[in-house]
């Protein structure tokens, strides 16, 4: 079967269970959002997929083949990670050249074009770039490798709003021209909400949600108004959390809302992805 299948993968670091029997399938040519709080296991998962760290249990299949120590399979995946693996002293343009040798479908012209759109100084040494430009440098490579699977770990780290917008624009353009499987791990949720088709939420090493953005967004709603009325409404319903301000209360609920069941005087509104995420991943 095509795609990346993660089957019963667990990983422990000492007493900490970073991944706990994770099962996910990244299907061909879809854009995924991998969302989780700091330390939830996002990077560990991406590193297991790309064989940078080994799972204690379970396996990862790429197009039906195990990925462990399998170079042919691993060349189908590119991980843009927070860590930089380039030798000190290497310049940006040298890294482009090097990528072209390692990834047969690397489009050097596209990388250079992207670099100039971001005004990335290609003659500089990678290690001398600012945090934002380190991210941009890695984006330029990730967008040009043309592997069937591209994983982005915190791609917009340190980028200003203009550059973040440029990144999303280029990503959608590229994906429209030549679709690939894209996984974006991030905690800037609102920005990617419309870009991603499927959302995976990871909490303490477990997958707590794996569904389309649209399904997930249709599930949360807020009821607010007089606190006593709100309490009466929420009794017996699936409550995610609540905020109070004097005699006012906002309750965050899961499920589909039937407007006729909401008493007059209470306001119903949708929960956006960020609020939904916060409520679902609160401890």
């Amino acid at each position: 079967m095509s795609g990346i299948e993660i089957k019963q993968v667990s990983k422990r670091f000492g007493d900490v269970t970073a991944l706990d029997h994770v099962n996910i399938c990244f299907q061909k040519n879809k854009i995924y959002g991998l969302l989780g709080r700091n330390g939830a296991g996002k990077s560990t998962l991406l590193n297991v997929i790309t064989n940078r760290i080994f799972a204690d249990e379970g396996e990862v299949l790429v197009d039906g083949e195990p990925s462990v120590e399998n170079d042919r399979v691993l060349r189908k995946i590119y991980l843009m990670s927070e860590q930089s693996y380039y030798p000190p002293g290497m310049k940006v343009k040298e890294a482009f050249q090097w990528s072209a040798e390692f990834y047969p479908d690397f489009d050097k012209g596209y990388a250079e074009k992207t670099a100039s759109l971001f005004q990335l100084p290609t003659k500089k040494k990678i290690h001398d770039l600012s945090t934002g430009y380190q991210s941009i440098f890695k984006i330029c490579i990730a967008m040009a490798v043309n592997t069937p699977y591209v994983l982005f770990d915190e791609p917009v780290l340190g980028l200003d709003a203009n550059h973040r917008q440029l990144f999303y624009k280029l990503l959608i353009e590229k994906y429209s021209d030549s679709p690939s499987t894209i996984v974006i791990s991030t905690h800037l949720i609102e920005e990617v909400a419309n870009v991603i088709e499927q959302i995976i939420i990871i909490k303490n090493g477990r997958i707590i949600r794996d569904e389309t953005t649209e399904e997930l967004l249709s599930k949360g709603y807020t009821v607010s108004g007089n606190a006593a009325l709100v309490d009466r409404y929420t009794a017996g319903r699936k409550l995610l959390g609540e905020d109070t301000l004097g005699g006012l209360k906002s309750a965050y609920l899961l499920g589909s809302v039937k407007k006729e069941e909401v008493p007059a005087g209470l306001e119903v509104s949708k929960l956006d992805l960020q609020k939904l995420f916060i409520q679902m991943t609160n401890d």
Partner: protein
Amino acid sequence: MKLEFEEERPIFIQIAEGIEDAILSQAFPEESQIPSITEFSVTYQINPATALKGINLLVEEGIVYKKRGVGMFVSKGAVQVLREKRKEQFYDRYIRTMVDEAKRLQLSPQDIVNLIERGFEG
């Protein structure tokens, strides 16, 4: 078309309505070509599958049609079809919310009629 989405309704529905608005305002005249899925998704920074879903709603209703290998076009008669459709939605979308607010403010039906007349005069 507006470039801002509101959070209340799914994005694909808002894309479809944005195109409907553009057809009603003659920004996308009948028999003219509308932007491609890629143009919509890049401009609005949305997943192409979402843009496609929105446009497919209009294709199913016969408001937009696809020409293989060329692109998508506004159907002849689309404006009239949309006007009828919007008239049917008018009660649910505007009158009901207005009456709800009027009740909170204890406005009488006559008060509202007066306000509506004022609106038409302005």
